[in-house]
């Protein structure tokens, strides 16, 4: 990522229920926040589209798991099992990887 390091990172993860697919995506992101993004204030929000379909429709979520990096701007939306190595995931989100 170009530019200064972000002061805060906000991630919104949209899942459909607590299926094994959803649980794996949640675990991947928690690990990412605790390890690779440990030096940043990281805000991970999980939104269950089955429990909150209005929000999903408002954000035009077409599929889950969908991860939106809301902050730092510009927003970045990725989709899939997110099961790639952390550096690839961070690159896909346009977030810094410190090689920790």
């Amino acid at each position, binding site marked *: 990522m170009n530019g200064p390091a972000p002061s805060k990172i906000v991630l919104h993860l949209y899942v*459909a229920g607590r*299926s094994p*697919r959803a649980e794996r995506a949640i675990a991947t992101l928690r690990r990412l926040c605790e390890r690779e993004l440990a030096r940043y204030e990281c805000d991970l929000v999980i939104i269950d*589209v*089955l429990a909150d*379909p209005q929000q*999903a*429709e408002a954000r*035009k*979520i*077409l*599929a*889950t*798991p*969908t991860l939106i990096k809301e902050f730092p701007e510009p927003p*970045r*939306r*990725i*989709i*899939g*099992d*997110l*099961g*790639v190595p952390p550096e*690839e*995931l961070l690159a*896909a989100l346009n977030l810094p990887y410190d090689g920790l």
Partner: protein
Amino acid sequence: MDDSLRYPTDDFQLREIVAANADGIIVVDSDGLVRFLNPAAAEILGRRVDDLIGQIFGFPVLRGERAEIDLLHPDGASQVAEMRVVDTEWDGTPAQLISLRDITEHRRAQQALRDAEAFNWAILNSLTVHLAVLDANGMIIAVNESWCDFARANGDPELRYTGVGVNYFTVCQHAMGLDSEEGTITLDGMRAVLEGRLASFELEYPCHAPHEERWFVLRVVPLRGTRPGLVVSHTNVTEHRRLSEAAAEARMLRARLSEFERELRDVDVRSRERSQNKRPLAGGVLRQRLPDVFRHALTFYKQLLEESLRHRAQPDYAIEQDPRELGEYLGNHDATARDVIEVHLASVRAASANAPQVKQQAYLEEGRLLVLELMGHLASYYRARLMTLLNEPGSPVSEQR
């Protein structure tokens, strides 16, 4: 082959093929914006093509070549899709070609299969019989919970010798001894069932626990279906055996009863020859005829039973009560062999109630000896009484001599 025969010659032809494809095809740019999608993709997403062009779908990030995702419809319904992604170009810039295949039905069918399998396992696990399925080489490929529970409770807590993946033929050889007759018979039986020479094979064997006598039946039947194999079951038949023994016991007692009855009738007839005033023996059941006497006999018999048991456990223990005394007491009240049996059965039943199985067995064994001894005393009593009558002066029988 000419390339023009293998590949579409122009863009229009290519778009026609993509449009007709049953799989949903979406092209997204590096920001995840939809640049192209075919009608199948719009249908699978539950939206119109025009509503999706230019919308953000998301940049695909997946571990391998494919991933499963949930597709959301505007009405809240969802579908499971398999997503595949390849790098491509669109209008000269890097893009991702995403194909989506609806696998909702496939997943439902898989779930139904899993449910059916779970149901079958629930049935197998509900059975108290210990079940294992072996392949054609004797390898254990499945076991039910009863099998596992028994293994855990009997020296194989980790299921190292009787769990899935173990060769049961080898286990049988070692358990029964390589050269033992039983081991050979069992292995021959299993192979005969496997090869179709026998419809089934059964073997009853003892498997005693430290404080319990146990008997099992090993039953081997062929595995029905396309795969060759065997279904092996072990059933605890201790209770069944105990009941069979009890039935044999009852038969034996009935035989002895008839014998004693014949003897007592004979004594009775000869007694009446001596005195016409004497009332016949067996004038009704003792329990109804003289309830107090029956109760006393019952108490007496129970004491004898307890003493016998104590003597069995402590051979030094001196028995105080004398079965002969009870025999005379019963004889004095004109008891029959049938009354003795009734006293015996009622006493054993009362003593065995709520007693552990080992003690119940001991009551049965001691009672068997006691009842026969008591009958002997009763017969002796009547014989002695007859002899007295015969020897009395004026006896018609003695006068005939």
